[in-house]
Each structure stands twice: as C-alpha cells, then as structure tokens.
C-alpha cells in the first residue's frame, strides 16, 4: 500500500466522522455538551460554546499560517529562507492579545462560578452520602423530612454487567444508568444537596444539572439545582471509588409539586411500616428469612461476595467460610460492625434494619451448601 492510499484512507475516515456528526439528532445526543435543565447547566453550556469557538478561531489562524507556510515555503519549490528573527513588537503583540482574550473569558466565567457556588436560600435540603457502591439520600426538611433510602444499580443492569453474563447489554433499558430507588425532587424549587461520604471519595454528578461535587469522608460539600421541567435525569459516580466505581449511577426524578407531595407521603408510610415490621417481636420462619435475605444479599452483598458466594480478588468467599458456618454471634458481629481485619467490609448495622440483617445473615448461613443456624431480628438487636 502506498502513502497515497494511506492518505485516502485517512480522508475516508475523517469524512465518515463528519457524516456521523452531521446526523443531527444523533449529534445532539452524543457529540456535544448538553444544555441541561438548570440555569447553571445552561450557563455552563454557553460558556463551553464561547471557549470552544475562541479555540476554533485561534486554531484556524495558527494552523492556517502553519499549513500555508508548509505549502508556500517548501524547499522543494525553491523557497529560500528569509533571515529575520527576534522582534520585540511581535512578541509583545502575541502576548498582549491572548491576555485580553483571557480577561474577556474570565468575566463571564467568574459570574457563572459565583452563581454555581451560591446554595443559599434553598427550599429543600437533601443529604447525599456516597457508599461503596451506592448512594444514600436523606431528606433533611420539607414534605419528605426524615425519609432516607439507599439507591443502588437496578437489578437488570446488575445481572447483565457480570463478567460474561451472556446478556445483551444493548437490550437492557438504561444499562448502568438506572437504579432501584431514584431520588425524587419537586420542580421549581431550589434544592440544596449536602454531599458527603461514608468510606472513600465519590463524586455526585447529574450532567443535566450542570455540576458535579465530590463526596468526601469528613467533609460536607454543598451544591444546588432548580429544575423546572419534570423528568428523569441520569448521571454516574465520577470519582474512582474502588471496584464498582462504574456501577453506581445517580437517577433523579423531578416531579410537579403535587406529585412530589404524594410520593413523599407514600414514602413516609412505607418507611414507618417497614420500621414497625422490623421492630416487631415476631419470630420469622426460615423460608421467610431466606426469601427476604436473597433480595438483600443481591443488592448489598453480591457486588463483592458474588451471587455464587465464592468471592473475588480481595473479597473472601462466604461459601464454606469459617464465619458463615461458625457461631451466629461472630457472623452477626462482622456484618453489623464491619470487619476489624479487612477495611473493605463495611459496617452494615448503619445501613440495614434488624430484620434485613437477620434475613441476609440467615441467607448466607444456609446457601451454597452452607448449613448453620438461622438468625432472628431480636438476635441482631441484642448484638448491636
């Protein structure tokens, strides 16, 4: 293959990119930053476009001059080198002009940044806590005050994302961008997010809102969004936070005020029913615990210990493990308080209620060939 053919290939590839880019509907979605649904994100978008066009203009001038001299001042065309060099006038000129352009950019950028960082006078405050690898949302005030829940990757995505799962991920709806329980916020209200973490650093990002903010253990960062359009907005964790960093999406649903109130009331009722159920003295049958435990295991444990209980890498197997088939007290201790020897094992006492803990411990003690005692909620309560 000659060089000319290579150049032809390059041209073909380049033009195919252009053809893809000109397919407008598709281009809107994938080629550029999105405008988003908040003032902050719209400002970011217009700032992005301004800087982009300035770069394109400078690029045309600089690359234009370069390419012109590459063709016009070729030795093979008999060009003879001029002898000029050093010119204070020119050096000053091309120092001052870029400086002026930068000042022109800095003014709107400063304005946008001040607006982005002003979370004062919020209508509602939601606390967002990053965990390996899920988000916890807690409503600090308003109609849903006290409501708190974990939001994890939805089941369909979670099954499809296993290594060689055999599932066609292009057929999974919103693959890796869907959760079991999304955050719900009212439209037209200034919602303040208090963002922190329970373990490592995560970052909470919804592109349509125009910001991302790190969730850092020991820090409470704040940011805000006022969303006018009802809709579902999706994002992801954007700070490397360990094995499943790619599998902890953020989904926020903005609902009209009335709808939001209904959702808040239902959520509160659901929470108090669950709390009552967990606190009751009822003695649960093994089948009930196993069924419930399988669900809890799937959302809280399987990411590390795997669905088959065999673990992976630094995450130990539960199948046949000394803790899982040993005395119940030891097993409860590790799950409730975390492992003293392996910091990767979090304290689930803070994340799950007594009933779910009892169920999942029972499940672990009686699955994959493990045969050990069952655990009741009151055992967990006593161990706390």
């Amino acid at each position, binding site marked *: 293959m000659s060089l000319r053919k290579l150049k032809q290939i390059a041209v073909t590839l380049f033009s195919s990119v252009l053809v893809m880019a000109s397919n407008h509907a598709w281009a809107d979605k994938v080629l550029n930053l999105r405008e988003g649904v908040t003032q902050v994100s719209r400002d970011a978008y217009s700032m*992005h476009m301004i800087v982009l066009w300035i770069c394109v203009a400078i690029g045309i001038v600089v690359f234009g001059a*370069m390419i012109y*001299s590459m063709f016009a001042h070729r030795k093979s065309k008999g060009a003879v080198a001029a002898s000029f060099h050093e010119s204070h006038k*020119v050096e000053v000129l091309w120092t001052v002009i870029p400086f002026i352009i930068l000042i022109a*950019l800095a003014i709107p*950028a400063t304005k946008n940044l001040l607006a982005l960082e002003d979370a004062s006078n919020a209508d509602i405050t939601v606390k967002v806590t990053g965990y390996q690898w899920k988000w916890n949302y807690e409503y600090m005030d308003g109609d849903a005050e006290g409501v708190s829940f974990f939001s994890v990757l939805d089941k369909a995505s979670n099954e499809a994302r296993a290594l060689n799962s055999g599932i066609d991920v292009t057929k999974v709806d919103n693959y890796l961008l869907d959760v079991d329980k999304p955050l719900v916020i009212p439209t037209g209200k200034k919602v303040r997010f208090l963002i922190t973490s329970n373990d490592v650093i995560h970052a909470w990002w919804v592109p349509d809102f125009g910001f991302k903010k790190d969730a850092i253990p020991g820090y409470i960062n704040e940011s805000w969004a006022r969303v006018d359009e009802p809709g579902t907005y999706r994002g992801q964790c954007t700070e490397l*936070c360990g094995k499943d960093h790619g*599998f902890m999406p953020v989904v926020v649903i903005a609902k009209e005020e009335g709808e939001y109130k209904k959702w808040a009331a239902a959520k509160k009722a659901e929470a108090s029913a669950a709390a009552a159920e967990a606190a009751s003295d009822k003695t649960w049958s093994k089948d009930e615990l196993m069924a419930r435990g399988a669900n809890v295991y799937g959302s809280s444990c399987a990411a590390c210990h795997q669905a088959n209980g065999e673990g992976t890498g630094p995450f130990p197997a539960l199948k046949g493990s000394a803790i899982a088939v040993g005395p119940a007290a030891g097993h409860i201790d590790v799950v409730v308080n975390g492992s003293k020897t392996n910091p990767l094992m979090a304290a689930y006492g803070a994340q799950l209620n007594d009933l779910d803990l009892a169920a999942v411990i029972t499940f672990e003690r009686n699955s994959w060939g493990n045969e050990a005692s069952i655990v009741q909620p009151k055992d967990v309560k006593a161990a706390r």
Partner: protein
Amino acid sequence: MSTAHAEHEHHGAPSGLLRWVFTTNHKDIGTLYLWFSFAMLLIGGSFAMVIRLELLQPGMQWVDPNFFNSMTTMHGLIMVFGAIMPAFVGLANWLVPMMIGAPDMALPRMNNWSFWILPFAGTMLLSTMFMEGGGPNFGWTFYAPLSTTFAPASTDFFIFAVHMLGFSSIMGSINIIATIMNMRAPGMTLMKMPLFVWTWLITAFLLIAVMPVLAGAVTMMLTDRNFGTSFFNAAGGGDPVLFQHVFWFFGHPEVYIMILPAFGIVSQIIPTFSRKKLFGYSSMVYATSSIAFLSFIVWAHHMFTVGMPVAGELFFMYATVLIAVPTGVKVFNWVATMWQGSLSFELPMKWALAFVILFTIGGFSGLMLGIAPVDFQYHDTYFVVAHFHYVLVTGALFSIIAAVYYWLPKWTGHMYSESLGNWHFWLSVIFVNITFFPQHFLGLAGMPRRVPDYNAAFADFNFMSSIGAFGFGLAQLLFLALIIKCIKGGEKATDEVWEGAEGLEWTIPSPAPYHTFAEAPEVK
C-alpha cells in the same frame, strides 16, 4: 600529542555485558535510559491494550472491574514514571554534554546509579500485579483513603517503588544542573545554550522542587497504612483533601516536567528543517521560565470539585488560564520560525509538526478545562482523558520520537529507513487521532473516566477509540524494527547529518565517538 597518548584518550567502549553495568559514560547511560523507557512504553502500552479491549464493546467481556482498575493505575504509573520521564533523562544524558561541549556529565558515577535504580523500581512496581489481593487499583493519582485504608497489601511495594523512582529523578536532575552550570565550553554563555539544554535546566529545577513533595505524600500514606497515623483519615482527625493538595503540588509541575524538554526538542528541530533561525530565542527562554513558575501556583485546578472556597476556585482558575499566554508564545514562535523558511519534511520535522498541531489541540482543551464553571461538567470524564493524552502522547511522546529520528543518525552513524519511518509516522498520526479525538465526544456526552463498562449510547465512539488504540500500539513495533535496523546498518550518515543543523553535536563525527570534547571546543 603522542600517538600512544591519543589512543589512551580515545579508547572505545569496553566489551561484554558488564560494560553496561559499570558504565559511567554519558552515551552508554543515555542508551540504557532510552532502551529502558522503550521497554516500559511497550509494557505500559500493553496495559492500555487491555483497557481498550474491555472497552471495545459495552458489557463486561474480558477482565473483572478490580483488574481493570489496576490496569488503568499501572498504565498511568508506568507511562509517566517508566516511559516518558526516563526517556527525557536519556536524551539529556546523550545530548546535554554534546550540546554544551562537555566531555561527560559532571557526576558520572552517580549517573550510573541514577539509572540502575530504575529497573529495580520498575520491576518492583510491576511485581505488585502478582501479589495477593492484586496490584494498586486506585488510579495513578492514588487518592486517599482509597489508596490507604481501602488499598490492597501490595500498596506498600508501590510506595517503595515511588520512593526509588524519586531518588533516581532527583539524582539525575542534580547531575544535569551540575553539568550545565559547570561544564559548558568556553564562550557557551547561558543565553547561547541550545533550547533543549535550557528547557532541561528548568525541568531539573522543577524535579528537585517537587519529587520530595511526592516522597512526602507517599511517606504519609505509608505511616497511615502501617503505623497508625491519620494524615488522610478523617475519622482520626486527618484530611483526605490534604492528600490531593500535596499530590497535585507535585503533580502539576510534573506535567510540565514531561512537556518542557519536549518544547526544547521541537525548538531544535523546527529551525533545522526551516533552514532559518528560531524566531525569538530569548522569548522562548522567558516563556519556559514563566510556565515553570506558573506551574507551582495552579495545582488545585485538578480539584475544582472538592469543595474549595469560591475565592480559591477563582484564584486557581485565573492562574490556570494565564498559562495559555506563555504557551501561546511558544507556538507562535514555532510558526514564525517556519514562516518564509525553506522547509523540508524529513521524519524529525514530520513528527515535530504533528507535535505542534496536536499538542496545541491538547492546549485548547486545557484552556477549556481551566474555566472552572464548565470544568464542573468536564471533570473526571473522558474529555479529560482526551486532553491529557493529546498533551502526553501527541505532545511528550511525539517529541521523544521526533528526537530519536533527529539524533539517531548521530548516535548510530547510519540513516534510518525512510520508508519504514514514513509508515510509522502516518500510521501513528492517523491511529492516535482515531483513538483520542472521539474521547472528547464521549466525555462531553457524559462518560466518566476509569469505568470498565458503559451504556450503549457510548458504544460507537468507544469502538472507534479501541480500534485506533490497537493500531497505534502495533505501529510502535515498526519503530522498534526501524531502530534495530538502523543500529545494524544503513546508509552512512554525514557528520552534519541534516543540511540546516546547527549546534556542537553536529561538529563531531557520526557515529559520535565514545569520548567527545576531551578538549573543550571554542564557542563564538
């Protein structure tokens, strides 16, 4: 001078393997550095192939997420500390003495040691991959507490390897500074030094300033991990954000450590093939110094999203975009050098021009990233990945390749194969853009970096990027073939090699004799 004396003065290289172990010759050590960095480039590159293989299609097909994370981590560490930095030190070893008319480096025994630490540090770093619990998996930026409380046991070996790499860099820098300050030929004033020497002098000061900061960061990690301290542990009264400040106080100057020598190389090559003096030599020196100074006061632009006070964000935004001014001056000077020159396009020039254009594209995305309110959208997405690969691959790496083509005839005494070189150049330039340009779009569309899997909406560009990466990786094997061929033989190179080349290194024979400038040349 008697014949016997002359023979004594100009003895050749000793033979055998031990020549390389005990050598104090700057040319031998330069060669060792360059081969080491090439080996690391291929190893780090093969890690990139694993990354791109997993990202070829949506869904998890090849590796589990934990191994994927160690691949991204090791790829970054090996490329930065194993490939790019040692390659520049290797070039400095070969070229600085020859350019300033010195017989060798100022501290030849230390020179041997600074090199021989590297293979051990590199091996230790790579060996972590085979340890229980896997290798480092927290990204090359190793943010605490992921790299302390939550890291695999092998992290302690990673810390030791970083310490050793730091020792090597610091010793190398001291040697370069001592050589440049003390061993210039009579008449070679500072403002007559070739720009490659200037940029390395400034780089060496940057290295001495920031490598101890990195050593401090990893030492705090070490004590946090093993001796119960809480520098970065919030639960013990420490501060995870402190880690990022310390790391980037090293990390940002580090970025310029990897690009200033590149500026020097390109400033040597473009005048040669334009047959015209560099436009604005002194402004190039001042621009390099300003960039070096600014590099110390912009570090927190890597951290706009950690929740700094808004006044801090504004300061770091202003300081960051200011870097565009001296960087622009450099690009304008290169273009003005070409203007009304008499251009020819031998391979070093091809690579240098690709550098100018593609590095400038990386500079543009850098300016965009510096604008804080929009950075909140770009941060930690593939847009950033595209940006730093444009400045590090088509910037730093391309300049190193340009340098190899430019000086290879002087080193080996043979011209390289032009046709093989053309294949290497065109395949590399085409595939590198297919690899990294689509990553801008992926980032803007919302794909985070360091994820092993993605939604189908990102599939087309990831597929393209992976194909480009495989092509770019394979193209580098042509480079290896070209170098080996050139060492073995080829058309005899003249002493001057290039028609328009200026500088002391072109006054000595090709290949450069084992000892050069035993008697200092006179520089007018």
